[in-house]
């Protein structure tokens, strides 16, 4: 158990990343009840946007200066693609049966992957990404916090807090809540629901870009396929936390991240479970946890029970 703090830190950092991506699923679902399966690719495009921004900067720029600009560059790319997807792929299908936009989202995800694969220079193999250098911070004897993990652990809660305040306090945020509750009535009250929906897509995409930069500076590489598995995990996190609830996305992400890292470290130490532990089984245990949570709380950890949804 000596390494427990270290494994908790790993799980938290991974979970914070899942949470940042999960915001995109949960925002869009909360407002238009669409599962935007292309969101993993929006995350990936955010990564390539950030890389482009970095390449455009004069070489030798300190990462402290570069990272904010990379987030901006990534967000421009991901928001542009997400809003275009909303306008041209999802809006025409808004009143269609629910399966139509779902399949469209899956198709869009393939299209976006192939576009980056084909059009971005050298994207056919992993591209290296500026990585945060330096020794990890020693907190205790058995807890070293890597710089990139510290970065995401500071960034994710800060972004969440900003989003929470925005939704609760600002005029647009309240319009967003109204649209989520009842789009028709919101429209009658003079809310431009189309604009609100675009905003939901844009906010989700901006969070995905932040996540992509956090991912890149940690792993030191990005590739055109990276959105698929992470998108799936983030979607799982959103469901686990209660899809439609923005705090749920973060909570779900953290729970999922912790479940993965703790199951890698400890399942194999339970007598008789040696064969079922380690990295090979982490995803199995994460999904076992998801099923158990959904059995007890079908609406997810922080979700609200809504009769006519999901």
């Amino acid at each position, binding site marked *: 158990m000596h390494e427990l703090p270290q494994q908790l830190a790993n799980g938290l950092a991974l979970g914070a990343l899942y949470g940042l991506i999960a915001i995109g699923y949960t925002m869009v679902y909360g407002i238009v009840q669409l599962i935007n399966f292309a969101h993993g690719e929006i995350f990936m495009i955010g990564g390539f946007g950030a890389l482009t921004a970095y390449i455009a900067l004069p070489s030798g720029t300190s990462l402290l200066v570069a990272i904010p600009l990379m987030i901006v560059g990534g967000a421009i790319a991901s928001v542009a693609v997400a809003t275009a997807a909303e306008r041209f792929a999802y809006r025409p299908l808004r009143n269609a049966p629910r399966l139509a936009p779902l399949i*469209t989202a899956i198709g869009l995800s393939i*299209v976006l992957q192939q576009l980056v694969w084909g059009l971005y220079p050298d994207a056919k193999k*992993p591209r*290296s990404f500026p990585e945060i250098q330096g020794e990890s911070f020693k907190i205790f004897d058995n807890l070293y916090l*890597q710089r990139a993990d510290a970065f995401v652990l500071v960034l994710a809660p800060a972004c969440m807090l900003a989003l929470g305040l925005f939704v609760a306090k600002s005029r647009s945020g309240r319009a967003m809540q109204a649209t989520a509750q009842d789009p028709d009535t919101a429209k009658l009250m003079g809310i431009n629901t189309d604009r609100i929906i675009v905003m939901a897509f844009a906010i989700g995409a901006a969070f995905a870009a932040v996540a992509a930069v956090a991912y890149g500076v940690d792993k030191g*590489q990005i590739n055109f396929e990276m959105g698929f598995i992470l998108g799936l995990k983030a979607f799982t996190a959103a469901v686990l936390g209660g899809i439609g609830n923005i705090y749920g996305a973060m909570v779900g992400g953290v729970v999922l991240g912790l479940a993965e890292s703790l199951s890698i470290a400890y399942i194999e130490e339970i007598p008789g479970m040696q064969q079922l532990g380690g*990295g090979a089984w982490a995803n199995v245990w994460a999904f076992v946890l998801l099923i158990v949570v959904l059995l007890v709380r079908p609406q997810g950890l922080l979700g609200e029970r809504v009769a006519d949804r999901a």
Partner: protein
Amino acid sequence: MRHRSLLILTTALTTGALTLTACGSRDDNKGGGDDSGKKTTVVIGVDAPLTGSLSALGQGIKNSVDLAAKTANKNNEVPGIEFKIEALDDQAVPASGKANAAKLVGNKDVIGAVGPLNSGVAQSMQGDFEKAGVVQVSPANTNPALSQGDNWGKGEFKRPFKTYFRTAATDVVQGKFAAQYLYNDAKKRKVYVVDDKQTYGAGLAAIFSAEFKRLGGKIAGTDHVTVKETDFSSTADKVKSSKADSVYFGGQYPEGGLLSDQIKKTGAKIPTMGGDGIYDPAFISASGVANDGDFATSIGYPVEKLPTAKKFIADYEAAGYKDPYAAYGGYSYDAGWAIIQAVKSVVAANDGKLPADARAKVVEAMAKVSFDGVTGKVAFDEYGDTTNKQLTVYKVEGKVWKDVKSATFED
């Protein structure tokens, strides 16, 4: 009306997606201006991951076979025969490999094929080639079961597919060689073994572990990672707390590079060793963390150091391919050249013409092929395995792989 426009949109999107996918797998090899109608065209199929994270290796395979075909045409190696290649992309996915195999054997001009890269993909293709009687030469498969049957571990060798050959030495040779180097030369005693659960990686890790234990070393722990995942920090911390003095990774460079980086980031200053799957520049360049001290074994002597390879390297550079020949370039060239030599002997035995049952004849001729290739003597034993058992250990020093020991493997 709404439903119609919806249908059109969905169709358009799907078509778009499919077209794009198809574009990816098409090879832009334009035969061009061969106006001589008298020459018989013989196609050598190539199957390798041309896109995706393993494309660095796959492109090297494709280009090297292309170079072999072009060299044969230029030298008029087989009079009356014009060689062409047809390269298909398997994206390292077994199902794609199977579809490609079906496509290749369906083309009556295909006389043989080079590929694939991955042992797992090879498993799905062998049956199709055998049924059609088309010779297949892999430049990179190392899993012993492919040529020696599933019970090779118990000492029962039975060749499952008579059409399957390879220019790469098996994992038995490679895994044992790695264990001997790590124990005897690098003086490591406590190794942590990680694999990626794939045919290649898991097989190699098991052979390595057995030999390392036989030599007297200790296995500090084992873990598995999932292909295409990228966060291995929990596994890395397990390695650190196990106090192992080295790590052996059975798998490919995308996961291997990340694993090595993440282990080093925990503060554990221990080397990671792997097989030819991690012996690629992308293992080092994939991230900013230094990989200094990491090891990889690969088959054969360093291509750059073989006198026989000088011409290959010069020709490859002269041909101006966009991607480097990578780890398997020499083996791919030799695999392609072996098919060309087999065709040559078949044609020579048939009065300078390609016989009607050329495919079957080429399979027979393959067993007798013997020539001095890029990687040394190229010939095949009774299982279709290469008789060449030379291996090299490479070490990362300052952003590049440097060869530290080359030897012929002895059991």
